[in-house]
């Protein structure tokens, strides 16, 4: 038992004292106590010592100038990026325990995480929303750095590493996007990898490297998984270290350099205890808020299993790639997808060297500020253009079918509570003569088809939601027939009929013991027939034969569960 000769107590007490001292090598226990009690530090300040002695404390500064901590200046966005990175790492670690990166098992493991694992759904939601937030926060951090000219000398290298970190964040998000292996994931990544393929020269090689094969499959999933859990996080941690090391060395760019007559602040906020507890409080508030939002207000959807043979209707990229999808609609994919995107990214990377103005003051940077705001507006507009609602040729029959009875997702028929849908067969027809001189529907050409509907069906029994649905159908038929020149004189029939009954009364029914306990189902079908038109000499000529299209959806009682509620849609 090593007891230092200075200790005044011998024996066990002396040993305990020595052990206690080893826990507080830089600052004694008494000094820690005073710190926590909020007492002023003595001079010279012993609390600064931890920043030279402790590994963890050496990463953070001893004190911060007051202006660097102003929330309206940095808004803590860099700090928040790191917060979200750690949040993703922790929730990702949890998910890694249950997830399996093989196409045979990935989807089933997702379902298991959401249904069977306690708090699994919550972890997955946090991970997903956290990813969106992280990308958003990183982009906002970049914007802040741009507008406060913090990239200028001597901080060019910080900006450079920051841009690489932006790329890492986008890649992390993109690689994780594929892992659920549902239709959304599969097709969004298919689009992304086909964009990589489009690059001249090295494109197909990059695409093959990403996918491990000709198409997205087991190879792609495994490679994306390894990228997502190991390669990219490792690179990100290294780059964050480099980035923050440079930030610490150069110190946060002073706010007074932005204005003409502002004087530098003298006041400094000591890291220990003020900043430590401030950051601790923010961490806990953010964690609580995030868990709260994810449990009560948000739900990460899982679409149906990835199917290489069936492309869903409106495939869209993740929101931070909308700008790319929007640009691709403007013209040639190499010019816009690679050329313009490459130029934009190149300009961003080299910004500190393109911007020769050494001044950080707002008054001296009018051009840069205006350019920044304009770029932001263009970015938002182009992103809007990337939405599937915009600029894609719409076929009326498809649009109607996908709105009412979509293959993927709920559709407005299913969104009506199950009991409010008619439980006797309802056949509703709408005929619209789009070529007639009169506007709108003609009375007598729309309504319930009594020959095909259930004879016992009465209009009084139909719920208000059903009547609203039928009104919307009438409106949509007119709208789409007027919109689409080829949807001529459509006859649209919506049928809602009972399909499977719930058999709950017979306890001897063996089938029920092995079947799902209460199954009820209705079937909704949209059938459309319209006059075919063919283009001859630039004119649309009506043909004799009719085109038809039918789409069916089976509607189950529990098909929709609303976020935050535990009861199914009643």
């Amino acid at each position, binding site marked *: 038992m090593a007891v230092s000769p200075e200790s005044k107590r011998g024996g066990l007490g002396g040993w305990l004292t020595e052990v206690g001292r080893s826990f507080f090598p830089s600052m004694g226990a008494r000094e820690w106590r005073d710190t926590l009690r909020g007492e002023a530090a003595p001079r010279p300040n012993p609390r600064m010592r931890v920043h030279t002695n402790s590994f963890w404390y050496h990463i953070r500064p001893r004190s911060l100038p007051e202006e660097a901590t102003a929330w309206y200046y940095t808004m803590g966005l860099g700090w928040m990026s790191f917060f979200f990175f750690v949040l993703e790492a922790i929730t990702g670690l949890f998910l890694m325990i249950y997830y399996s990166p093989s196409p045979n098992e990935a989807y089933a493991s997702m379902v298991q995480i*959401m249904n069977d694992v306690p708090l699994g759904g*919550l972890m997955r939601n946090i991970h997903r929303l956290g990813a969106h937030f992280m990308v958003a926060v990183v982009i906002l951090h970049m914007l802040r750095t741009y507008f406060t000219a913090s990239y200028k000398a001597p901080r060019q290298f910080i900006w450079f590493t920051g841009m690489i970190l932006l790329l890492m964040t986008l890649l992390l998000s993109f690689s994780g996007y594929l892992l659920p292996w549902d239709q959304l994931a599969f097709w969004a990544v298919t689009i992304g990898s086909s964009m990589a393929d489009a690059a001249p020269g090295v494109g197909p090689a990059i695409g093959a490297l990403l996918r491990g094969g000709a198409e997205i499959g087991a190879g792609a999933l495994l490679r994306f998984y390894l990228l997502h859990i190991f390669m990219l996080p490792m690179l990100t941690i290294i780059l964050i270290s480099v980035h923050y090391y440079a930030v610490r060395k150069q110190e946060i760019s002073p706010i007074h350099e932005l204005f003409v007559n502002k004087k530098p602040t003298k006041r400094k906020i000591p890291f220990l205890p003020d900043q430590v507890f401030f950051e601790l409080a923010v961490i806990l508030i953010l964690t609580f808020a995030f868990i709260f939002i994810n*449990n009560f207000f948000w739900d990460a959807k899982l679409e149906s299993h990835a199917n290489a043979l069936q492309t869903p209707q409106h495939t869209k990229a993740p929101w931070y790639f909308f700008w790319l999808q929007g640009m691709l609609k403007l013209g040639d994919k190499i010019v816009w997808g690679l050329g313009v995107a490459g130029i934009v990214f190149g300009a961003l990377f080299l910004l500190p060297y393109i911007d020769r103005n050494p001044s950080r003051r707002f008054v001296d940077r009018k051009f840069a500020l205006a350019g920044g705001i304009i770029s932001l507006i263009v970015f938002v507009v182009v992103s809007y253009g990337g939405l599937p609602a915009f600029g894609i040729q719409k076929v009326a029959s498809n649009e109607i079918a996908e709105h009412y009875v979509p293959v993927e997702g709920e559709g407005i028929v299913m969104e009506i509570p199950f009991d409010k849908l008619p439980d006797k067969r309802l056949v509703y027809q709408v005929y619209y003569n789009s070529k007639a001189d009169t506007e709108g529907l003609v009375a007598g050409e729309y309504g319930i088809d009594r020959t095909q509907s259930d004879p016992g069906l009465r209009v009084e029994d139909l719920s208000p939601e059903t009547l609203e649905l039928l009104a919307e159908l009438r409106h949509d038929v007119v709208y789409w027939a007027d919109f689409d020149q080829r949807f001529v004189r459509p006859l649209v029939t919506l049928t809602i009929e009972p399909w499977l009954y719930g058999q709950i009364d017979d306890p001897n029914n063996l*089938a029920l013991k092995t079947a799902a306990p209460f199954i009820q189902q209705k079937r909704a079908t949209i059938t459309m027939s319209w006059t075919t038109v063919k283009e001859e000499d630039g004119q649309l000529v009506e043909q004799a034969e009719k085109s038809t299209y039918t789409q069916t959806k089976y509607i189950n009682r529990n098909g929709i569960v609303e976020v935050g509620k*535990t009861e*199914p849609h009643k």
Partner: protein
Amino acid sequence: MTKNIAISLLFTVATVALLGYIWFGQTSDRLVATTQRQDAQQLEFGQRNYEQYCAACHGLAGEGAGPQLKSAPPLNSLQTGKGPGTEAFTTTNGIQKKYGSLRNYVEAMITNGIRGTAMPAWKQQGMRDDQIRAIAAYVMAMQGGAVSPVAKSVAAEWNATETAKIPTPVATPEPPLDDPQANAGRDLFRGRGCVGCHNVTDKPAVGPGLAGLFTPEGTVAYGTVLPNGEEVNDATVLEWIKVGGGGPGVGPDANDSPTGGGEYGPMPAQAGVVNDEEIGQIIAYLKTLTR
């Protein structure tokens, strides 16, 4: 700073309390609700798959005997029903013991098929496990008469429409063939569903065209051998019709293979459809087909 310490403590407690509330309070309800939704989605998915792969033989409402009388057993009364190739799931035969539950039995049938019948091994045909589970869930939902009368009438209409799409045999009355066996064989060929997959010309349909099967030149698709490599003669053709080669060529790619046969595998066994004597008559009819 003390304010921050107080806030930290408060929110630590709040976070722990929230997690506790979620774990103990909401979790089981939410799991149940999510599970119910997953079950509902699985049922809908199973229905789409059933309509694509199974309804052609088993009928849209599981009533059995799809278009062109493919003679598949009904699926809506598996507890008690018996059809060609089906065995009742009761305790008296060994099936319940072997499979444990009706759902396991259904999944096993879908996955592995039934040898010697037209039921293909869907797993070998490339169906995923989740599709098989979904179809089994839908089949389970059909049990005990759970199909509504409306569904049955819709299924009958669907049957009729699908039947109308399959090329029908020649409607005009033809003179009877000289050989009475061949005549009987022709009626069987048309009536028992062979015509649903095979043309008597060169043209491939789901299966290859049978013109010239017993001639020295053989058929267009395979020549003088059967798809299993054996030379065409009475015995091998009898065996081929009885035992088949795997499964029926249903599905959207059925006409895309280079030989014109089904992408999903060669001929299904017809042992449940025709007996040996009838096969002899069909062979007699096939011998009359020339190129």
